[in-house]
């Protein structure tokens, strides 16, 4: 596990750190700028009456689920009828 050139490796690792942190920050910095630009463009060209992010995706109920819901309603009703 111990290379002959320990010190070297640590120096290299420090260089990696400079490069790595640099690229990460650069990447995120550009991303932030692009996202801010995007937000401005969208706010300008797509009026705010467009549907904003709904709290709960209520539309998520697909066809299958409708069928399942129908079945469940039936089951619930039956279950209650049996009980009472």
């Amino acid at each position: 596990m111990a290379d002959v050139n320990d010190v070297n490796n640590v120096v290299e690792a420090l260089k990696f750190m400079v490069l790595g942190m640099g690229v990460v920050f650069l990447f995120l910095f550009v991303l932030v700028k692009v996202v801010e630009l995007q937000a401005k463009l969208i706010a300008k060209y797509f009026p705010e009456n467009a549907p904003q992010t709904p709290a709960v995706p209520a539309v998520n109920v697909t066809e299958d689920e409708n069928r399942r819901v129908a079945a469940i309603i039936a089951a619930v009703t039956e279950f209650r009828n049996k009980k009472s």
Partner: protein
Amino acid sequence: MRLKQIFIALLFALVALSSSAYAEGHEATTHQEESAEKKAYQPKSISELASSFWETTGIKAIIDTDDGEMSADPAGESKEHVMSAFESSLGRIIMILIVFTLFYLAIAKGFEPLLLIPIAFGGLLANIPLAHMAGPEGMLGVIYNMGIANEFFPLLIFMGVGAMTDFGPLLANPKTALLGGAAQFGIFGSLVGAAALGFDLQDASAISIIGGADGPTSIFIANRLAPDMLGAIAVAAYSYMALVPVIQPPIMRALTTKEERQIKMGVQRPVHRLEKLIFPIIVLMLSIMVLPESTPLIGAFAFGNFAKESGVVDRLSDTMQNSLINTVTIFLGLGVGSKLAADKFLVLESLGIMVIGLLAFSAGTAMGVLMAKLMNKFSKEPINPLIGAAGVSAVPMSARVVSKVGSEEKPGNILLMHAMGPNVAGVIGSAVAAGVLLSIFK
């Protein structure tokens, strides 16, 4: 009933008829082939039988350390070796104790059970003597070759995580993405540490990715840079992610004043649907331009997120978020666990990996908090430095920890949404860092 019986009788009659006609020409040759395949069975007395049964028991395999038992590896014989006395007896017992500890943490303490339980069980199975479940023919080996050796499973997990991630909080306050960058110091700081400890640069890089606090990324990188240490790295990554509620709070408190921890942050602006839709594409395009090496990770993640935000393929995004990611989680866990075999895990490197992993998490947390303090100084809107800790990723655990610490300091101060921004940025940040590491060793 009678009908059925007649049916069956008829069937047998037909079979009998036909078979005899057929059997004549064909049987002789078949038999020769078969006998060539089978080992000849030598008759034995009952006591011989019992003693040869004894030879195949696990107790015997553990007691007799000198039986030349081979280790198992998904890559097959080329990677296998005769197990040492330690590996085939005490080592196994130690690993089984470690596995039980992981069970305890997962069940009693609720630490990342979705991953610790499959990983630990995989480890348990991998340490069973003689069964060779981690070999190329065994269940764990089959799983490993199916999706870990080729990095397919981590990418599917990333796809599912993408489909579960809401970038709204990040888009509402994009600056907080920089906190997800600062926390990547966890990676590069521990890289220096690992190099200082004597790991060579490639191994050190693979280990340091634990600081990214992201399971699939860790597995992806370990697989490319140091496949022999995959088990220890993955276990360390998930263990420390599980330990986030233990590791982070003291560091957060040490680096901030009480006033800072009590800072209230404003209400987030609403985010337009289009912003969310375009965001994964922006991230992917940027990563294509800067870091094609990390696009498998970012690409899978962006695909999942794009599918979800498109709003027109809910069937697919539901599947990614549920049955697909669940299935892959089971397999990924078992496959990773197969690297907890004593002969793979109980090496000095593993200890180093555990130590460096802890260091990495701490360094990432600290740098995230410090960066948030700095941003708070220069920002118009107040920024609570605690949210910097969420930059390590470990989604959504670290954001929850931030929120918990925040509301302990000042009841009613809900930081969760504000912490989610750096949190998801941390995922992107570690994927970028991973790309840099890969590009260095290309």
